[in-house]
């Protein structure tokens, strides 16, 4: 049934502007699920420590699982080179001038990969707390990272990305005291924009919290595959 509009020149469309991206993301999600891959999308501002943390996680997790990573940057292969030190399968996505990753870039980059041979896929998004929020990459969870040196009100300054995230990781926690990090204020800021968000504190330098976060990801993976196989 067609709805009446006052102006005969107006035609209703009602389509999501990012329909193409979202459809592609949905297809990716299905492929990942079928192959048993659990996908984590990491977002943060530049310098929060995504690559350092991810290298550590790939190294530790890689002892028990088949791990892989895609990393997005405007230019250079530097981060992929660093991540490869973990022994994981890694591919760089250079976006040129684009400030975020899109589902199409993920699909294109994974084209010749055998997903059946991967348990965990990490996507390290372009360092940017604004644009990646709008793009679904077919991930199972989106994790936003903040370092203790970024200021306690950062989540409130970039609310959209925090609101779209499933979990938050606070990095460089070994520097908390030196940086005068006010934990309660930071937690409050996160909860203002994403009430109930899961928070992990980690330090790659001391190792604090890293295994706990990994255990949580493993639990998330098995819970997901259990629920999706029912």
């Amino acid at each position, binding site marked *: 049934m067609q709805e009446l509009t006052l*102006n005969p020149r*107006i*035609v209703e469309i009602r389509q999501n*502007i990012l329909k193409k991206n979202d459809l592609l993301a949905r297809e990716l999600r299905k492929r990942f699920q079928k192959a048993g891959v659990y996908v984590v999308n990491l977002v943060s501002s530049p310098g929060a420590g995504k690559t350092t943390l991810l290298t550590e996680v790939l190294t530790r997790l890689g002892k028990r699982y088949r791990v892989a990573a895609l990393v997005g940057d405007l230019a250079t292969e530097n981060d992929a080179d660093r991540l490869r030190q973990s022994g994981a399968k890694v591919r760089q996505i250079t976006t040129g001038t684009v400030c975020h990753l899109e589902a199409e870039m993920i699909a294109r980059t994974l084209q010749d990969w055998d997903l059946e041979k991967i348990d965990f896929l990490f996507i390290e998004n372009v360092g940017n707390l604004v644009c990646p929020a*709008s793009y679904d990459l077919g991930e199972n969870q989106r994790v936003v990272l903040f370092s203790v040196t970024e200021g306690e009100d950062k989540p409130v300054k970039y609310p959209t990305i925090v609101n779209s995230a499933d979990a938050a990781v606070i990095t460089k926690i070994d520097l908390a005291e030196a940086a005068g990090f006010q934990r309660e204020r930071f937690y409050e800021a996160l909860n*203002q924009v994403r*009430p109930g968000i899961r928070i992990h504190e980690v330090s790659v330098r001391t190792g604090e919290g890293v295994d706990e976060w990994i255990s949580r990801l493993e639990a998330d993976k098995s819970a997901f595959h259990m629920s999706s196989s029912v």
Partner: protein
Amino acid sequence: MHELSIAHSLAELAVEAAEFSGIKQVKALYLKLGVLSGVVKEALEFSFDVVVQGTSLEGAKLIIEDVPVTVFCPSCQETRILPEPFPMRCPVCGTKTGQVLAGREMELYALEGGEENARADLESSNC
């Protein structure tokens, strides 16, 4: 500046929709943007004008409706519209809630054609 990518997607979608609806020249696009969509209107308008050059959308206006955040309050068991997107708590009882029901959308809602299309519409409806 992801608005340029968004403008590209919007233009692609609108050109297809216009063709499908028989609109030769689009006069206006009606959008619904949630306040949590992360889109800066001015940046989108600027990008849009750039990407539509030479298409049936050239010169078209963007008419944007802001969609406020609607949440479900677990205490009141009611849906509530937030006066401001943050903090995310029920404006009536103050309970924090992350159950967002609306406010993230980025939707092309309608297209408006020019005068010639109106005449074509009327003629075809007379048949």
